[in-house]
């Protein structure tokens, strides 16, 4: 019994090390290449500045209030979308193109640890983007969110949802690195517009607003703005958080299934 517990502990430890190794490897590659990291910093900051200054034009709105309103939607809508969805797509496609998948699966690496490692890497990028967005927003007078725990929970759920969708898209549609930009733009930009990432959803006509309620990005931005900008409690954003949790779970499940399906397809090529 004790031996069994010890084996379980060893397996858990090894799983953790593999997860961290995959995450660390992806982060080192991103730091070496620099371009993606720079783009993932510039894009949300430029959207934050544009939206912040536009929102500040509204009557009875200070610059600080404007930045406080746009920072949450910029973070979960704009920043995480491109890094946490586009990033896993690029990672999976690159592994496929360079055949490093083959090398990985010659090793004892567990598929779950690989999946988790990607989540860890892009989770770290997402948290970094959160710090950057709020650093800039506070420079223009925005106040930091008070309900930090709930805000971080929404942030992590959003990252999980994006990573899951990223895996699904990469597994089924991604064939070469040229596909990354096209896939992210084709799926992303309409969803971002409809989700309130670029402008408040109150500007949407009724029919589009009804449609937006099926869009997970809508629930991410609604929940995050309510918690981080307006200081609302969990009870007040419960529906959005529940929708988002359900979607994140679904996205991760479908992502995992797609990943396993892709591996079977890849193996058939290893002749």
């Amino acid at each position: 019994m004790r031996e069994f517990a010890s084996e379980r502990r060893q397996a858990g430890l090894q799983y953790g090390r593999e997860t961290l190794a995959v995450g660390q490897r992806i982060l080192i590659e991103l730091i070496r290449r620099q371009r993606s990291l720079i783009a993932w910093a510039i894009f949300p900051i430029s959207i934050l500045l544009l939206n912040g200054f536009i929102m500040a034009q509204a009557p009875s709105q200070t610059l600080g209030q404007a930045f406080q309103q746009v920072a949450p939607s910029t973070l979960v809508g704009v920043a995480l979308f491109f890094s946490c969805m586009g990033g896993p797509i690029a990672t999976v496609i690159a592994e496929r193109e360079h055949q490093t998948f083959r090398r990985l699966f010659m090793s004892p690496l567990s598929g779950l640890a690989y999946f988790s490692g990607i989540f860890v890497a892009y989770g770290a990028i997402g948290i970094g983007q959160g710090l950057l967005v709020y650093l800039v927003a506070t420079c223009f007078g925005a106040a930091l969110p008070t309900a930090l725990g709930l805000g971080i929970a929404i942030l992590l759920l959003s990252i999980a949802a994006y990573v899951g969708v990223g895996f699904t898209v990469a597994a089924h549609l991604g064939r070469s690195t040229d596909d990354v930009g096209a896939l992210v733009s084709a799926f992303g930009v309409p969803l971002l517009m409809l989700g309130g990432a670029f402008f408040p959803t109150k500007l949407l006509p009724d029919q589009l607003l009804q449609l937006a309620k099926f869009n997970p990005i809508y629930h991410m931005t609604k929940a995050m703005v309510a918690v981080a900008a307006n200081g609302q409690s969990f009870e007040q954003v419960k529906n959005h958080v529940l929708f988002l949790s359900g979607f994140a779970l679904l996205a991760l499940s479908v992502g995992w299934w797609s990943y396993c399906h892709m591996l079977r397809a890849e193996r058939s090529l290893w002749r």
Partner: protein
Amino acid sequence: MLNLRHISKSYDRTPVIQDLTLEIAKGEIYGLLGPNGAGKTTAINIICHLLNPDSGYVLVDGQLSTKAIKPLIGIVPQENLLYKSLTCVENLQFFATLYGLWGSQREQRIDHCLQAVGLSDRAKSPAETLSGGMLRRLNMAIALVHHPKLLILDEPTTGLDIEARYDLWDLIRQLQQQGMTILLTTHLLEEADRLCDRIGILKQGCLLAEGTVAQLRQLIPAQEVVLIQTSESERAIARGQAHGLINRRYGSDIGFWLTETRSLADLLTLFEGIPLDSISRRAIGLEDIYLEITHGQTSPPTQPQRSPVALSLSALERANHSLS
């Protein structure tokens, strides 16, 4: 150390491996030769548990091939499957962690492997800045980092210059001296001849013959082969046949097998009256054996035997049948 028992594998009903059975002893270097598409890489993928066979099984160090045997095996694939923006050390750290190495043990293994492949001075260099030969050596270091019992080298020296090739051969010999079992696939017959204790020849997924080079040489009933170039090849062949010599084509050359060593004067007399552009002779080598077996011209022995040299009559027939 490695046992393959009656392995068969098909893709879309096309057989790629047919009833493959082979055994490699601990500390042995076994060379698997065969033309492109013979099933060498598929066999490796089955051994590494990347593919499942349709029938048969694999034993590595007495254990059935499952995920659990992966730490026992180190693989050097044909391509340099590396993370190009990572340094040599970072690549090794990553793969060592996947194999369960950690802390000072991991760092010691990395230092040892870098030293073994001669990359210690490039430890901090990103892989993308290394030459082709260095990338190949890093590929080798990754396969060795967890100190496997069985090392599989899939065409390890393809594309390397002669010096890098000699260095890699030295390393392979050192690994054998350390007790490592090595399975090597190659197109370079010289490589197989120099390195391998035993050789298996695979064609159309069938193991046609296996044994030491000396044992395989017994498949050809000749001591030497005389090669001639002539504009009157039909006459030369007829002359050879009249003297009981078996002839073979070697590109534009015609080869005649000699059952015993003859002097050059004798040979010139033999072909007297036929205009010869060149004539040379050499001992029967692995090239002759390989060509003979893969082109299916050898008459199988009346009683196929597995030892000392195994020539599978049914395998030969199957391979020739699938070619026709």
